C-alpha cells in the first residue's frame, strides 16, 4: 500500500527525447515528507533532471520517456499535474529566466504568482511583505528587478517560489551567485522553513550537512548513496569524487570520531562539539 506521508521514487528512469541514454537510471528511495533533502553529484549526474522530474517539468513541459514512479505525499507530478504544480515551488539555476519580465518592481514580481492563483489583494500585500522580509528584500521592493545584483536576483527567485506557500520546494543550485554572507543567511533561513518538503541541489557540502536531513549522491544518473549526511559522508566511495565538509576533514585529521559510534566522524558543528567534549574529558 502506498504511503502518503513520504516522498518516494520507485524505479524511476528518464530519457530525454532525441536522446539515447537515460539521464536518470532506476532511482528508488523514500523519505518522510517535510524534510530537507540535499542532492550532490558532479556534472552529468542528473541533478537538474531529477529536480525537473520532482517539479513535473519533465515529462509535462519537456518531453521524454519516464518510467517508474514518483510520488510526493498523495500526489504524483506526472498524474496529478496541474494540481501538483499549484503546491510546488521551483527555483531555477539561472535566476534571470525565473522572472516574468512584466513587473516594474520587485513587489509586483513576487505578487505575480499570487495574482495567478487568484489571491485577494489584501492578502497579496501581506504575503509579499512577509516573504520580502524573510529574504531581506524589503529595501528593494520598489526597485526594478533589473537593478538587482546576482545574489539579490536569486533571493527574488526564491521569494517568488515560496510566496504561494508550497508544500514542496525544489531549489536547483540557489546560491551560486550569492556572496558568502548572503549564502550563510540563505541556509540559516532554510533551517527555519517548516511544513515543507525541500529538495536542494548545491555544491555547498558544509551547509548541506548542517541543514539537510537526507543526502542523496547522484553519479551518472544513478543514486549511489542516500541517508543522513553523517552516514553518507562516512561511507563515500572515492570513485564518486565527492568532497567532504570541513568539519569531517578536520575530525579525520585530528582523529576525533563520534563518541557513540567510533567508526564515524562528525559532519556538523554540533556533532564535532559533542565528540570534542568527550575526547577532551577523556584526556
Amino acid at each position, binding site marked *: 500500500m502506498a504511503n502518503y506521508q513520504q516522498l518516494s521514487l520507485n524505479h524511476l528512469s528518464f530519457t530525454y527525447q532525441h536522446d539515447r541514454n537515460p539521464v536518470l537510471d532506476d532511482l528508488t528511495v523514500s523519505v518522510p515528507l517535510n524534510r530537507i533533502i540535499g542532492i550532490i*553529484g*558532479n*556534472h552529468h549526474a542528473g541533478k537538474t533532471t531529477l529536480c525537473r522530474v520532482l517539479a513535473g517539468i519533465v515529462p509535462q513541459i519537456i518531453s521524454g520517456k519516464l518510467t517508474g514512479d514518483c510520488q510526493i505525499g498523495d500526489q504524483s507530478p506526472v498524474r496529478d499535474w496541474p494540481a501538483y504544480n499549484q503546491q510546488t515551488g521551483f527555483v531555477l539555476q539561472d535566476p534571470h529566466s525565473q522572472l516574468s519580465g512584466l513587473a516594474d518592481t520587485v513587489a509586483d514580481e513576487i505578487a505575480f504568482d499570487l495574482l495567478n492563483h487568484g489571491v485577494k489583494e489584501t492578502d497579496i500585500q501581506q504575503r509579499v511583505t512577509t516573504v520580502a522580509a524573510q529574504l531581506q528584500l524589503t529595501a528593494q521592493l520598489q526597485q526594478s528587478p533589473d537593478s538587482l545584483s546576482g545574489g539579490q536576483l536569486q533571493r527574488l527567485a526564491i521569494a517568488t517560489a515560496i510566496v504561494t506557500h508550497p508544500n514542496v520546494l525544489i531549489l536547483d543550485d540557489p546560491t551560486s551567485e550569492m556572496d558568502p*554572507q*548572503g549564502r550563510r543567511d540563505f541556509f540559516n533561513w532554510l533551517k527555519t522553513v517548516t511544513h515543507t518538503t525541500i529538495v536542494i541541489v548545491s555544491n555547498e557540502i558544509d551547509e548541506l550537512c548542517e541543514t539537510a536531513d537526507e543526502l542523496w549522491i547522484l553519479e551518472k544518473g544513478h543514486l549511489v548513496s542516500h541517508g543522513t549526511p553523517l552516514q553518507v559522508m562516512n561511507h563515500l566511495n572515492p570513485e564518486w*569524487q565527492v568532497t567532504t565538509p570541513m568539519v569531517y576533514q578536520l575530525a579525520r585529521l585530528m582523529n576525533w570520531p563520534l563518541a557513540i559510534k567510533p567508526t564515524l566522524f562528525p559532519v556538523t558543528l554540533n556533532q*564535532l562539539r559533542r565528540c*570534542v567534549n568527550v575526547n577532551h574529558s577523556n584526556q
Partner: protein
Amino acid sequence: MSIIQISDLRYQYPASDFQLSINQLSIADSLVAIVGQNGAGKSTLFKLLTGLIQPQKGEININQQNLARLTPEERLRTIGIIFQDPSSQLFNATVEKEVAWSLSQLESDAELIQATIKKALASVGLTKLKDQNPFDLSLPEKKLLTIATVLAINPQIYLFDEPMMSLDWPSQRLVTVLIQHLAQTGHQVIAITHDMDWVAATFPKMVALAAGNVVFEGVPTNFFSCPEPVKKAGLLPPRIMTIAQEVFNDHQVYLTPQDYAEKHLVH
C-alpha cells in the same frame, strides 16, 4: 613575472553612484586573489584589467606599459581572460575548433596550432571530448573549455572571474592545480572570487575591495587575523576559523584543516 601597477584609477558607470577608486595598487605576485562582496567593485576592476574598457581617470600599467596603449595582438599575448559565463563566447562546431579559433587570431602555422590545441585540451582534461559540440558540454566542461582557449594562447597574465563558480568538485580541484602550475611556470594568475576557503588554501596574496576601494592587500593570514576589516568587506573568515571559534573558542588564524592539524598535533 609581470608587475601590474594601478595608479589614481577612477571608474564610474553612467547613471550610477558607484565609483571604483583605487589610488595605488601594485600586483607583483604570481597568485593573487581579489575578494569582496557583491557590489564591492570586483567585476569593475576585472573589466578594467581586461583593457577593453578605459577608466575615466588614471591608468593601469603592465611592466611599465600602459594597458590602454597595447595593440590588440599585444593585449592578447599579455592578458588572457576567463569569464564567469562560458556561454557568452562559445560558437564553434567542435571543442577542438573552439580552441583553434582563439589561437588562429595570432598564429598561422597549422602544425603549431594543432600541437598547441592538443596540449591545451589535455591540460583541462577535455581531449576525449574534442569532437563534441561545445553546446552539448556540461557547464563545468564549458568553463574548462574557455580556460583551454586561453591556455592555447599562453599569455603572461591569466585573469579569472569567479573560476570556482558553477564548477563541480573534480573540476574545482583541476582548476586549482592548473592555476598553481601556471604560477609556478612564470605566469601571473589573478582570480576574482568570493570563495574564502579557496583563497585561504590556494593564494599567498590577496586584495580585498569594499564599496569601490581597496581595504586590504597582503597575505591572507594577516587579513583574517583581524575580524574588523573582514567584516567591513562583508566577508567571512575561512570556514576552519569559524569551526575553531565556535567549537573551541579559539580565535587564532587557520587557513585550512591541515594548517590546524599541523599547529595542534605537534604538541
